[in-house]
């Protein structure tokens, strides 16, 4: 039972993907498109396996930047959301700013950060990723901490519960699904930011810079092979965030968002 329904879910996108790649391959061969215009999937896979070690190294550089930034941004974002929910006037000052910053591509700031550190340093990129992640986590977790059911708060007051008890037993559990929502948004964004940060100078060791340097050398198929590596890295981050969410919801935490309302 489970197997057939799973196959039914996986099969259509799989068939579509294979068909798409076949069409791509067919168009490139049929119209005899030159590799500098569009590389054929077969050539891309060939380059991918030929350069596998180098792609892996570049992926681990960009991936480490994204991961370090993601963790640091999450830690600071959660910490700040506690401060903001405790001191509401600060929240009123900072939240509109955080939302506005979320809407603009602040990763261009990395050009400025690059000036502050040595040219080979990965720190500007990591700072950039953490900044982007920080605002996503801050906005969401702060919402989870403050937007609690008024019935819950009245109930806790009727138990003569302290503010700390309300925080621990109502606000924090209420914010947990919001944290995972934030991570689900932030995980792919952290990878994108790590790549894009590499376009603004610094050492040429990550996926983003390898893609541009291969294109500059007219090695189109190799550039696509690095793009494939970037896709796999982004997917990995997204998959991990989903696994984490499922682990948390198994404890009944995120169930509310899935089953109710």
């Amino acid at each position, binding site marked *: 039972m489970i197997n057939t329904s799973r196959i039914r879910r996986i099969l259509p996108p799989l068939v579509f993907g294979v068909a798409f790649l076949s069409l791509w391959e067919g168009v490139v061969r049929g119209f005899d498109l030159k590799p500098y215009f569009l590389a054929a999937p077969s050539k891309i896979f060939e380059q991918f396996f030929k350069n596998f070690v180098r792609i892996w190294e570049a992926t681990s550089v960009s991936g480490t930047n994204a991961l370090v930034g993601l963790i640091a941004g999450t830690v600071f974002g959660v910490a700040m959301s506690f401060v903001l929910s405790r001191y509401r006037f600060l929240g009123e000052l900072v939240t509109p700013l955080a939302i506005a910053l979320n809407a603009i591509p602040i990763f261009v700031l990395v050009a400025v950060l690059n000036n502050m550190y040595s040219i080979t340093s990965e720190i500007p990129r990591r700072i950039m990723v953490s900044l982007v992640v920080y605002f996503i986590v801050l906005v969401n977790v702060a919402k989870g901490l403050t937007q609690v*059911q008024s*019935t*819950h708060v*009245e*109930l*806790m*007051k*009727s*138990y*003569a*519960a302290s503010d700390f*008890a309300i925080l621990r*037993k*109502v606000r924090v*559990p209420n914010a*947990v699904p919001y944290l995972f929502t934030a991570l689900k948004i932030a995980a792919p964004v952290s990878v994108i930011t790590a790549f894009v940060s590499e376009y603004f100078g610094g050492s040429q060791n990550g996926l983003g810079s390898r893609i541009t340097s291969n294109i500059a050398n007219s090695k189109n198929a190799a550039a696509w092979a690095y793009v494939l590596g970037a896709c796999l890295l982004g997917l990995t981050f997204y998959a991990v965030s989903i696994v984490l969410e499922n682990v948390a919801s198994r*404890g*009944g*935490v995120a*169930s*509310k968002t899935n*089953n*109710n309302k």
Partner: protein
Amino acid sequence: MSAVQVTGASKIFNQGTPKQVDALIDVNLTVEPGEFVSLIGPSGCGKSTLLRLIANLLEPTTGSITVNGKQASQSRLDQDYGMAFQQAGLFDWRTVAKNIELPLELKGWDKTKRAARAQEMLELVKLPEFAELYPWQLSGGMQQRIAIARALAAHPPLLLMDEPFGALDEMTREYMQGELLRICAETSTTVVFVTHSIPEAVYLSHRVVVMSPRPGRITDLINVNLGAKRTEDTRAAADFFTGITAVREALRGTHADHANAGAVRGVEDR
């Protein structure tokens, strides 16, 4: 000693500003131990405000309120009452049993004692096999029964309820009314019950407190004599209809007296 004593209580919101609202003016009410008292009236009559004053979730602007002979603020600290709202207000991340244990946790009870009490309460509301489920796995009526179990977990002498059955369908509602009467009789709990349903107020109560808006105040006290044991047959009894008529007329009175044409239309007649 009375269970609840409200003396000359007023509650004015935003006093001295253009947005001033006289939510309650000069309210006097005494509730005896073991009594079931309903507060009924149209929207804005201050019935929920009065309940929150008794619960000390709000402070009165003037007047005094005692619960079990203590200041309301002290009785809140002592958890002398349990409270239930229209929304069951269960915590989705806690199991049913852990929800019931919450007030006991805050009182500092140890784990085994809490678990034993939660099981006892689940048996009282006839849901003993649901302890390990999560609230979202239960129906609305079951959730509300768990909320009542939680309100009574610490065995408080007083239960304060704010339209607890307002979101339930009619059949579930009547069933819950019967269950509430049985539970209160078994635990000899005093109840102050806010509702906007006339039949509900009459069926449940020893006394119905009729309130009127702008400014919120008590306009009538109606004694209901349906006997100690109320059954489903009570809903067809002559005394039941006499009570309903009396409350309805008292509510109309609040209408005629103050020419608030829209005021009574808000009262649901069910």
